[in-house]
Every structure is written in structure tokens, then in C-alpha cells.
């Protein structure tokens, strides 16, 4: 059973093509990640799926309902947490939650079990104005408000943007629990490392899906041999590697450079010999498996050349 089906959706703002020919399917009960940088079209797709914007072309359905014809019914079945906080800053924590429950014709009491896990963490501050909450607490409240009517599908548009590495991890732990309660989660993020926390992902760039599947499927399609290379000094090493035979691409990845090579032309031993001979010190070269970020860069790079 599919909870979201998107078929050939396009949307332009004037001359700017925000989405071109997007097709995706999201299974019931999965965490599906839409991964891409700012300006890729993520928010436009969210607004179409949450019935706030009409596509120029194509069709989409959520829980089997058409986003255009059945928009009113969809709105009752989904929860939506937009990128910017949707809370009423001058209402208290409790008032915000009551408000959202009432709008959806329910009560906090009736669905307390749905939000207990998250809401209990901020309940001690229920008298506090939402505007006076910390970023982490606002996020928990916004999530509670988006869940209080027991939606089938939860839409989260960049919930972790600008959030530090520790709080990001906490947030994903909450999502795993929401998923366990049977809710389908459609979430967008610019952080490539969050891909591994999703059941399936779609990589989006310049309004196009450049690949989709489970993180393992995407990684398995990476076409080159990948090496992690280290040597001092690092930045001159980066430039040197880019000029070597058989090197397809070379970028920094934390403490090492990731070097994609054409294995018919070169290999780890040749690279190591080459950079050592060029005078770099403390050189190390090791064969590694690519991550989603390596795949994204390769696929996005192909897009430019088309």
C-alpha cells in the first residue's frame, strides 16, 4: 500500500522551474527522506503534497486521495511541520496544543497516547509562552501539534536545519518512535548523513530527482572505485590528486580526501606511490565504500554535464 504517490509533477514560478517531472512513491509506515540542498525544490513538493499549492502538471495522491480533488480530506489525515515554526508565539505551550487539537475537531486528552512520548518532555513548561521556549523545546511542541490529531502521514520540512549535531540525533530518535507507532513520515533535509536514518530516500537537485531507493541501493550503484587519501599538507594534496592519471574526482571528506578513480587506469598502490614521490608526507591510501554524499556529488555532477 502506498501512502504517497507522485506522478510526473512539475511546477514553475514564472520562468523558474522549481520541479520538473517528479515521480515518487512512499510506502505506508516508512520514513522517506527527501534529501537535497536549499533551492532544490523540496519545499515546493511539500506544499503540493500538503494541498497548499497546485502543481502545473502531473498528479499526486496522499493516502489514496487526490491532492487536487480531495484536498479537504487530505488535510484532516496529515500532519505538517513546515520549515519555519508554525507555533503561535504568544500562546502558551498548552494553548498551542489545545488550539491545534480543536482545529482538527479532537482533544489533547483523546489522543494523548500519540503525543505522550514527545509532549511529556515539555509538559513541565506548559504554562510558558511558545515564544520563550528554547529551539529544541519549540521543535518538540511543533511536532506534538502536528501529531495531536493522529495523522496517517506526517510531513516534516527540514526539521533539523540549523540544529546542532546532538539535537539532530535526538530528533531522529523521536522520528523512529513515531514511525513505530505506525505513522508514515515524509521528511526533508539538506544533511546527507541523515539519509542512513531513512528507510528510503530520494536525492533532489535543481527540481529533479537524481536517484531514489534505499540508502544501500543508491550506494551500490556508485560507478567508481573510491579511495580515502591522507597526506601532509592536505590542501596542496587535494590539488595534486586532481591532476593525477585515472582520477575522476577528488573532494575533502573530513580528515581525508575521497578520490574516485577509474580502476582500469590506476589503483591505491599507484596513488600512494605517486603522492609519496611528489613529496607529501605521512601518506595513507585506503579503499573505502562510498556514502550517500559521494553518490549525491557524483549524480549532481552528471546533471550539470547533460
Amino acid at each position, binding site marked *: 500500500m502506498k501512502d504517497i504517490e507522485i506522478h510526473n509533477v512539475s511546477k514553475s514560478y514564472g520562468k523558474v522551474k522549481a520541479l520538473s517531472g517528479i515521480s515518487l512513491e512512499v510506502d505506508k509506515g516508512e520514513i522517506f527522506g527527501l534529501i537535497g*540542498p*536549499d533551492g532544490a525544490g523540496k519545499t515546493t513538493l511539500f506544499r503540493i503534497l500538503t494541498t497548499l499549492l497546485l502543481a502545473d502538471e502531473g498528479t499526486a495522491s496522499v493516502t489514496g486521495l487526490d491532492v487536487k480533488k480531495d484536498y479537504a480530506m487530505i488535510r484532516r489525515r496529515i500532519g505538517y511541520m513546515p520549515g519555519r515554526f508554525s507555533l503561535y508565539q504568544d500562546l502558551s505551550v498548552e494553548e498551542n496544543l489545545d488550539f491545534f487539537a480543536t482545529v482538527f475537531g479532537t482533544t489533547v486528552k483523546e489522543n494523548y497516547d500519540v503525543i505522550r512520548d514527545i509532549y511529556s518532555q515539555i509538559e513541565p513548561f506548559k504554562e510558558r509562552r511558545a515564544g520563550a521556549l528554547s529551539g529544541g523545546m519549540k521543535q518538540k511542541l511543533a511536532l506534538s501539534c502536528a501529531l495531536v490529531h493522529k495523522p496517517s502521514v506526517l510531513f516534516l520540512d527540514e526539521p533539523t*536545519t540549523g540544529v546542532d*549535531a*546532538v*539535537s539532530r540525533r535526538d530528533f531522529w530518535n523521536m522520528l523512529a518512535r513515531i514511525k513505530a507507532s505506525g505513522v508514515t513520515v515524509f521528511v526533508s533535509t539538506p544533511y546527507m548523513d541523515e539519509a542512513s536514518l531513512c528507510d528510503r530516500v530520494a536525492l533532489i537537485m535543481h527540481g529533479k530527482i537524481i536517484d531514489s531507493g534505499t540508502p544501500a541501493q543508491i550506494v551500490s550503484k556508485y560507478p567508481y572505485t573510491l579511495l580515502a587519501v591522507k597526506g601532509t599538507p592536505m*590542501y596542496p594534496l587535494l590539488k595534486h590528486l586532481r591532476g593525477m592519471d585515472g582520477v575522476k574526482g577528488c573532494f575533502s571528506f573530513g580528515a581525508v580526501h575521497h578520490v574516485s578513480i577509474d580502476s582500469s587506469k590506476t589503483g591505491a598502490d599507484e596513488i600512494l606511490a605517486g603522492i609519496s614521490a611528489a613529496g607529501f608526507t605521512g601518506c595513507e591510501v585506503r579503499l573505502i565504500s562510498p556514502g550517500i554524499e559521494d553518490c549525491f*556529488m557524483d549524480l549532481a555532477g552528471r546533471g550539470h554535464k547533460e
Partner: protein
Amino acid sequence: MENVIEIHGLTKKFGDFTAVDNISFNVRKGEIFGFLGANGAGKTTAMRILCGLSIPTSGGGTVAGYDIVREPEKIKRHIGYMSQKFSLYSDLKVWENIRLFGGIYGLSDKQIASRTEEMLSGLGMEEVRNSFVSSLPLGWKQKLSFSIAMIHDPRIVFLDEPTGGVDPETRRRFWELIYEATSKGVTVFVTTHYMDEAEYCDRVSIMVDGRIEALDSPGELKRIYGVSDMDAVFRMLAGKARREE
């Protein structure tokens, strides 16, 4: 070794809340200094003081040779600043942005004219000189914004989350610009939420609850905490935080 920032006992209180709690550190000329911390750790408050936008409650020091308590206006004139959130005016043309910031930093018309040519040819952006900034690809905007932050040849440039939300290749190309700049002697003070970028810094400080909990090279920090990457170091330290924003 020459220091571009020297800070001792820096404290900032808002009422009875101590946002920055007695921090001391130096930033050396030509280094890339990563300024990390969880949301609410006090990074923004500390950075505002270093940029001359706020006066500390106690403690002091110098930035680019000027006193942070007595000479904040001079600091503003002698540092560069760029953030992802605000940098260029998108409804001005490329040359107009350069002109505007050149004027703000007190360059003469003659200096602005020569800097404009130098910058556009250095960036390979001559043919977009008359384009609106809004029409440029993100990577170009970033390059331009970084160059404009250094239009007045500051000794130090502050980069506040310069790569947030940017695609992975553009993010890395931006760091290559940072390396180019530091190889010419500019000092870079940078904040980021991407822990792989922490590895690109010469030294990194990690703030927790208003204090600097650790300060060293990424290699040394990983060795001290016995972990393999900066993400793990960050989580060990920032995970101990007791306060939220």
C-alpha cells in the same frame, strides 16, 4: 607567533543568565579557527562581542589589534563578516554589491574601481558583472560574498555558518576558497554544524554551557577523547550540556 584575536576572561551576562562564562583563547595569524558548540552554548553572543557588536560584562581582549571594550567601532571597520543568512543584496547587480560594500568600508572610488576589476577577474565573473545577484547560482553567490567580505583587506574574516543548506560539492568548493585565503595570510574564524568541516580547521574550540570545554587541533582532540572523528568528539562534549537555548 602573532595573534589576531586575544581574549581573556570574557563574560557576558543578561540579567542573571551567564551566556558566556569566563572564556579565554587566542587565534593565530593565518589559521582557520573553528568555533563550535551546541545551539544555545553561547557562540552567537561571543561572536557578537568579537565583531564589536556587543560589549562584554567583564574580561577583555583584542581583535585585529583593537580593544573589544574601548574600540568596537574600529573592530567593525577592520574585520570581514559573512553569513549564509545575510550577505549580498539580491536585487542589486554584482558590481553594485561590490560598490556598496566598498563604500561602506570607506574605500575611495578609485580603490573600488580597481578592486572591482581585480575581484571579477579573480572570480572569473566578468560576464555577470551586470547581472542581478538573485540570478546567480548559489556557488557563485558564495564566492562573491566571501570576496566582498574581504574587500577592505581585513586581517581576519568571520564566517557564520557559511555553508548551511548548500549542496555537498559547493560546500567543499567553498572550503577551497577558505584555504586559498589563509594561504595568503588571512585568518578565518568559522562556525558550522557540519562536523566534517570541523576537520578542515587548524584548531577547533567547543563551547558547552557558556564555557570553552575543549580547544585543540582536530587530530589532538580525537586522540584525547579516543574517537575516530570530530562528530564523536562533539557529541561527547556537547552531549553534556545542561542548558538549552
